[in-house]
């Protein structure tokens, strides 16, 4: 065996030795998995090479194979019979989609992104990924390669989609964290914030993809483990959505060169961070968006000329995953010395594992190679033939003529033992906060404080750094209103210029409710994403969802119990609303360990729901800014006394116990009816009622539109009796909206909404005064929209 390849001595290793090999090699394999490998090679009568064991570790990593979501879980809940769940993914996510069975779902969970129908010519693809661990260590590179990676997912779906929209959702520590309180070895949240935004900005803008939807959340528990969700929507011809690989096709790598960068990204992401993780610099890279743009330019031409049969991106695990996955049904043979390198001196396993950015692998019938090379030459993109797909059902890797890996596809992809994990969930008990009506008659400061809280405050300084207009298709901007600075609920784009058919993209995320119940957090995230879709003119009927779970260490039963709760909600609510999941991803082990104190911190259990909806006529879209004095303001949907995990409780230091419940029958009817009211032109503006409740939503509508409001809490329809002004004003009950109705449409609107709770709150006024009267008739808020707007705009201004 050549000096560049090492044999890993596992045949005679004891358990302790097996675990040492796993740990020291950053393999992130547990004992059971190491033993399985040992047994497999024992039967072959030889040790694995480093190339082989690394390939297995990548393929079996949590990051690549999502073993937690496929594992058997023994779950128990207080007062309930223990149950056995045979995989969270098949039981709750995949099953929901199968039962909903929407005919417009073209491809779900099987390709690099989900595919839904758009029009007679095109389909849409959508994928959201996370890049959390890299962004914690190197925010700029981590976030940039996050967006770069998810763009390649769209490009690697079907035979390649053209990227048309980016979304991004970030969760950071509190921006005012004192430096002395920073966990050892972590970056300050402000530094992470700045770096992540710059990374997404520079990559997205250079690629010429509008970044038009997102969210930024803050919580102290994200300090050591920030979350960076990057999403991409692409458009693809309907006859380019299928891929296949035939024996004899060439394995062709396209794009950037390979270096010693990003090695062990997949396995690194599958472990907890600690205060020494900052030393793992080589796992994070700096992206090159122009290289990726060149790949897109070249590949879309090759796609349209039918020059290749299959495509996938080189993401986690590099060539080992890309070729391993593509070749799974047939087999593949690769010659590593052919790989175009950035510099000399890489060991074969490093070439094979490198996660160097901006590389794609395609399967090219040999007769098409010359034409492909011609395109690549014209676009100045490097393309290299690495080997061939075979019919051996083996993954065979050579270096300078010598075999360095020879693995059965069957063992590689199906040899992973299915783990059994324990999960428990116990509802927490938090101190309850009483209404403050007895001690105050004025909630103006509360409203200002809510508007200024970093989760609600304006994100304009970030949004402006993203090009949301490029490609020329934007119809509803992320910033709307009289001065283009109000917070839009969702964005709408027309990917085919000249067509009136549009795409709406929105998201929902409520980690604060996880502190009460992850079930309600997940349910509320789905409800919120759908509300955002409906609020700009979309319909629940035409909406698909993506689920992205970011969780703590799932090997701990309590963390896994929270995951089970959330997954159950995903099934229950999606099936109730009839909204299928088309793609999803999970990022686990978002925990930090201080190796000196042993202190362990997990992030709040965080589920991001992204929603995509096709809108038949963008001329029917609406925005959230009020349009004219004299119009009526209505609340749609019932308010309940549900302030557990609310921002109002939060600013007073409470969590509470009644997180917003979910009533999908009520919610579905509300959304369907409102949706048709909007498409019939009865609604002048509409805003989702969420963080900060009716108070914050109404204030945002008023200052975005540049008009005051005169409102009265007696108009709020309630589902249970609420005898507190502050609870009415700031409860975060689900399935609610605020709408603006012109006087001439008032009757038609009320008729249309029969059967749905809706109540008139007051009117839009032509003074800047924002007045809310309490139940007793006296004003409890009296201020101006300028003061409110300034409170909202100032905190994250720069």
């Amino acid at each position, binding site marked *: 065996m050549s000096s560049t390849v090492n044999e890993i001595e596992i045949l005679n290793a004891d358990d302790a030795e097996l675990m040492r090999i796993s740990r020291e090699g950053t393999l992130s394999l547990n004992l059971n998995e190491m033993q399985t490998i040992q047994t497999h090679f024992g039967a072959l009568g030889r040790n694995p090479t480093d190339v082989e064991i690394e390939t297995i570790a990548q393929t079996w990593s949590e990051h690549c194979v999502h073993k937690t979501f496929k594992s058997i879980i023994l779950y128990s809940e207080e007062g309930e019979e223990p149950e056995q769940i045979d995989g969270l993914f098949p039981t709750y996510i995949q099953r929901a989609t199968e039962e909903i069975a929407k005919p417009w779902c073209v491809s779900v969970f099987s390709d690099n992104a989900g595919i839904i129908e758009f029009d007679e010519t095109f389909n849409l693809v959508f994928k959201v990924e996370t890049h959390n661990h890299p962004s914690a260590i190197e925010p700029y590179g981590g976030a940039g390669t996050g967006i770069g990676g998810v763009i390649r997912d769209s490009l690697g779906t079907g035979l390649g989609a053209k990227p048309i929209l980016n979304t991004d959702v970030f969760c950071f520590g509190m921006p005012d964290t004192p430096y002395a309180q920073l966990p050892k070895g972590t970056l300050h949240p402000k530094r992470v914030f700045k770096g992540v935004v710059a990374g997404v*900005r520079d990559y997205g*803008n*250079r*690629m*010429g993809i509008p970044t038009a939807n997102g969210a930024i959340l803050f919580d102290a528990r994200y300090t050591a483990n920030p979350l960076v969700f990057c999403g991409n929507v692409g458009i693809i011809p309907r006859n380019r959505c299928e891929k296949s690989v035939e024996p004899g096709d060439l394995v062709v790598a396209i794009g950037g060169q390979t270096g010693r960068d990003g090695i062990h990204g997949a396995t690194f992401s599958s472990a907890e961070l600690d205060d020494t993780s900052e030393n793992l610099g080589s796992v994070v890279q700096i992206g*090159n*968006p*122009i290289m990726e*743009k*060149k790949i897109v*330019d070249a590949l879309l031409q090759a796609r349209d000329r039918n020059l290749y049969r299959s495509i996938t991106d080189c993401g986690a695990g590099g060539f080992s995953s890309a070729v391993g996955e593509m070749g799974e049904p047939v087999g593949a043979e690769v010659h590593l010395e052919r790989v175009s390198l950035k510099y000399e001196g890489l060991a074969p396993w490093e070439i094979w594992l490198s996660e160097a950015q901006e590389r794609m692998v395609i399967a090219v019938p040999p007769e098409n190679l010359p034409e492909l090379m011609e395109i690549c030459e*014209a*676009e*100045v993109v490097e393309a290299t033939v690495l080997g061939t797909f075979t019919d051996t059902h083996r993954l065979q890797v050579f270096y300078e003529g010598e075999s360095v890996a020879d693995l059965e596809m069957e063992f590689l992809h199906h040899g992973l033992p299915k783990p059994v994990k324990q999960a428990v969930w116990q509802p927490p008990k938090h101190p309850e906060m009483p209404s403050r009506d007895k001690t105050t008659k004025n909630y103006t400061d509360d409203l200002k404080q809510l508007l200024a809280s970093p989760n609600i405050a304006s994100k304009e300084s970030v949004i*402006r*750094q*993203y*090009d*949301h*207009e*490029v*490609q*020329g*298709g*934007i*119809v*509803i*901007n992320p*910033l*709307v*209103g*009289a001065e*283009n600075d109000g917070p839009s609920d969702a964005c709408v784009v*027309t990917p085919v*210029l*000249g067509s009136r058919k549009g795409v709406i993209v929105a998201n929902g995320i409520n980690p604060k409710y996880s502190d009460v119940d992850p079930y309600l957090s997940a349910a509320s995230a789905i409800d919120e994403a759908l509300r955002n879709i409906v609020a700009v003119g979309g319909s629940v009927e035409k909406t698909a969802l993506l689920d992205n779970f970011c969780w703590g260490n799932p090997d701990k039963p309590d963390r896994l119990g929270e995951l089970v709760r959330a997954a159950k909600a995903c099934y229950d609510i999606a099936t109730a609303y009839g909204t299928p999941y088309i793609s999803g991803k999970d990022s686990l082990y978002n925990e930090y360990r201080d190796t000196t104190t042993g202190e362990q911190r997990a992030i709040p259990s965080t589920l991001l729901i992204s929603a995509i909806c096709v809108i038949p006529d*963008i*001329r029917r*879209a*609406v*925005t959230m*800014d009020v*349009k004219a004095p004299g119009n009526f303001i209505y609340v749609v949907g019932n308010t309940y006394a549900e302030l557990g995990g609310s921002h109002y409780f939060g600013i007073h230091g409470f969590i509470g116990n009644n997180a917003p419940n979910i009533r999908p029958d009520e919610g579905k009817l509300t959304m369907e009816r409102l949706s048709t009211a909007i498409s019939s032109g009865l609604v002048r*503006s509409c805003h989702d009622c969420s963080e900060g409740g009716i108070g914050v939503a109404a204030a945002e509508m008023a200052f975005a539109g540049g008009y005051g409001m005169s409102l009265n809490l007696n108009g709020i329809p309630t589902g249970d009796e609420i005898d507190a002004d502050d609870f009415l004003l700031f409860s975060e009950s689900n399935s609610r909206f605020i709408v603006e109705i012109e006087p001439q449409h008032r009757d038609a609107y009320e008729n249309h909404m029969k059967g749905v709770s809706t109540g008139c709150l007051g009117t839009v006024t032509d003074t800047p005064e924002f007045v809310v009267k309490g139940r007793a008739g006296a004003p409890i808020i009296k201020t101006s929209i300028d003061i409110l707007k300034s409170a909202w705009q100032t905190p994250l201004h720069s």
Partner: protein
Amino acid sequence: MTNPKVLILRTAGTNCDAETDTAFQLAGAETALVHIQNLISGRVNLADYQVLAIPGGFSYGDDIAAGILLAIEMKHKLTDLLNRFVADGKLVIGICNGFQVLVRTGLLPGISASDSSTPEMTQRTTLAMNTSARFECRWVDLETQESPCVFTKGVKPRVYLPVAHAEGRFTAPTDVLAELEANHQVVFRYAESEYPINPNGSDADIAGICDATGRIFGLMPHPERFLTKWNHPRWTRLAETQDTASEEGDGLVIFKNAVNYVKANLP
């Protein structure tokens, strides 16, 4: 006659080519997206076209400075072709990154009329980093100036268009600025000097200029992003007050003017 032919130049990092293509097609042109390698190799002949459009993007990543590498490539490899194209009375438009390229090649504002010793293709003005020191995307009000620019005939006195750039601050030596004013080469100004109406701190609020003939035009705002009225960021507010008969966005006229000019002047 056949429709005017527009060559939309592409290279690594060009990214507003598709919407620029759509704009010219809506205006009635026949278009071709051409990689600069194909012009250099001679596979495509620039002389076959009447309009050269350099779209927005980040050509070669805007490494060193925005547009500079593409400008150098054009100066070194296409000077003769470009000079002949301009001498033949044809049209050139550069939008955003394309404007940055035209300024760095010296095609804009063109050689000084008073100083014939300046060689052609000499850079005399620049587009520097925004005073905000970062990339910004926002809509701005522009005032259309009296100018010989053939692209802006009949454009409203005030136009609303988006900008999206980090390096858009137009700046030049005092004498060059005076010359631009004297020759009426300023085509668009930001409507006010205050940030953010002047989004980048440009001298004399300059948003776009032309050469002395009016046939070479560069601007930082993106007219190709305002082709229908639903692109306007406040169309939901304007819907009821605006004339709803026309669905055309205010950016399209610039491309139509180019097509009409070619039809009338370049048989």
